[in-house]
């Protein structure tokens, strides 16, 4: 307390900015191992897929009923599906729904979760209590079952519908994590200093707390994304929501329940294409979450 009081807010901010700049080489952490570099690449490729994928193929994918469940070949690198359509094309065009819905859900989660967590942590009394009660409520509603119940009245035909449903019921965990972080940061000297100087709460939250919590949010974001991908794919997999377009969950559903691909090697490529896509994204996100963690938490770094 005594040491920091000597600094003006401007000085304090300048010092913090300097300290952040000095360590710009920390970014290397994201590519400093082949695994991490690969993970970055995977994320980039799938992101591009989600954005431009549907434009790469004709809306009406060619089918060939004499080439059903074909194994991988030059013409069909990932084999074909139940009507002889190219699996690679299905993966690429089907990425949009799955990934953008998860991304939208993550965005909602981040915005609501962070805001709720910061408010609850910074104003631990009245406002915080109210916010935390709401958070408890959201946390108490089991995510997958609630979507299952919702699916009886809402078919999640558009990706934004799925994104909103996932996001609205998914922000509780992040809110709680952010609140815990905020509570501990609140007692740190630089925050106490800022408060002592009479800065308005909103300013303290946005300029002091948010930048310091960002890494946690980033890490949580990646783990949340994987959770959202599972949930939506799971809904399609169970066939609880019907579908008009193909996406990875629909592929899994068809592969398991129609082609029985788990025991039939003939349709294995059809099962593995979406499955490996999901696994790749998840592992990449988890790997990057570790990198984010190390980025901000020197204790984890290799010496």
């Amino acid at each position: 307390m005594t040491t920091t009081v000597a600094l003006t807010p401007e000085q304090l901010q300048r010092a913090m900015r300097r300290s952040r700049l000095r360590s710009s080489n920390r970014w290397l952490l994201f590519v400093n191992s082949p695994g991490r570099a690969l993970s970055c690449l995977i994320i980039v490729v799938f992101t591009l897929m989600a954005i431009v994928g549907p434009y790469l193929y004709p809306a009406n994918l060619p089918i060939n009923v004499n080439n059903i469940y074909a194994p991988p070949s030059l013409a069909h690198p990932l084999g074909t599906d139940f009507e002889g359509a190219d699996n690679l094309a299905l993966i690429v065009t089907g990425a949009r729904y799955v990934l953008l819905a998860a991304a939208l859900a993550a965005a909602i989660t981040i915005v609501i979760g962070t805001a709720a967590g910061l408010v609850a942590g910074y104003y631990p009394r009245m406002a915080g209590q109210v916010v935390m009660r709401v958070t408890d409520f959201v946390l108490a509603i089991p995510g997958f079952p609630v979507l299952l119940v919702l699916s009886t009245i809402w078919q999640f035909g558009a990706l934004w519908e799925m994104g909103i449903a996932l996001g609205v019921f998914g922000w509780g965990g992040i809110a709680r994590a952010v609140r815990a972080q905020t509570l501990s940061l609140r007692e740190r000297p630089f925050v106490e200093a800022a408060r002592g100087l009479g800065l308005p709460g909103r300013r303290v939250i946005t300029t002091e707390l948010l930048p310091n919590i960002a890494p946690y949010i980033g890490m949580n974001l990646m783990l949340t994304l994987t959770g959202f991908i599972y949930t939506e794919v799971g809904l399609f997999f169970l066939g609880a929501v019907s579908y008009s377009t193909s996406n990875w969950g629909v592929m899994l559903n068809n592969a398991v329940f129609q082609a029985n691909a788990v025991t039939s090697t003939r349709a294995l490529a059809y099962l593995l294409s979406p499955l490996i896509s999901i696994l790749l994204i998840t592992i990449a996100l988890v790997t990057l979450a570790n990198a984010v963690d190390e980025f901000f938490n020197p204790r984890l770094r290799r010496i």
Partner: protein
Amino acid sequence: MGLARRLTARLLWGLIMIWLVASATFFLLLAVPGNPAAAQEAQDILHGMTPQQAQRATAAIFGYVPRQPLIDQYRHYLWQLLHLNLGISIAQEGTPVSHIVASAFPWTVVLALSGILISFVVGVCLGVLAAIKRHRLSGDALSLGGAFVNAIPTFVIAILLFYLFTTIWAIFPSGGNVSVIETPGFNAGYIGSLVTHAVLPVVAYALAIVGAWLLTTKASVISVLGDDFILAAELRGLRRLTVARYITRNAMLPLFTILAIALGLLFGGSIFIEDVFNYPGLGQLMINSINTKDFPVLDGAFLLITVAVILANILADLTYPLIDPRIRKG
């Protein structure tokens, strides 16, 4: 003194949450398109009845739903709820929903709790190991393995286990909760059958969440590793095992708060696991009731799951201070 007040506050809030969820499910039920009687009629026709036959049969079975004002229906619903009456099943005419969900509940809870327990023990042990060995290949392998297991969706785990151990290498029964051959009661055959039927689902539950425990524990342990008292212990030359015990105890505390969340996740997982293993718990009940459009049962099961998670959260909140001395004092 504080405990009693905390308890009342928590319980009160729990009740409010349950009321909110119950109201939400009530209004959701009203918004469901189509009606189950029509589904029944369609089913009859598909099974070969003539349309007129199906119409009359359906009318006789379902009768006509009395049209009441919404608010009266809502009041009636809440009043019945207070008496633990969740309505009557549509698919199983005349059977109370409370009866159906109550008989499914224990199967899910026993399996899910066993899964949590096993995965917790295994995950925490491996997590501590991964943290201690984080600069070695073995530690990396553990973390990577944890991330990998964590990355496999629950339904894939369940299906793989099912095919590996019931079809390809058939050492476990393929689904169900107990063999009908065994006479129910306290005898070796019956209990043995219960256990063998539970093994694969429990393993599926455990695998579904063990990676999460491993990774969380590792992160938690690493954050504890640098604490002064560990450093001091190491400097004093205490045995590694003793130090590891210190670390584990301190790192495990935050994990308890996640337990309740894990419970919610597992109820989600139960839908996949019970579906694959044909296990008669709440998850299978939910899927079946979606397929048969038995909305009262669906909502009853959902309500029960939510209430269970809410109560588990309250319990975790209240016991946490007992486990962590720092919070007890503060």
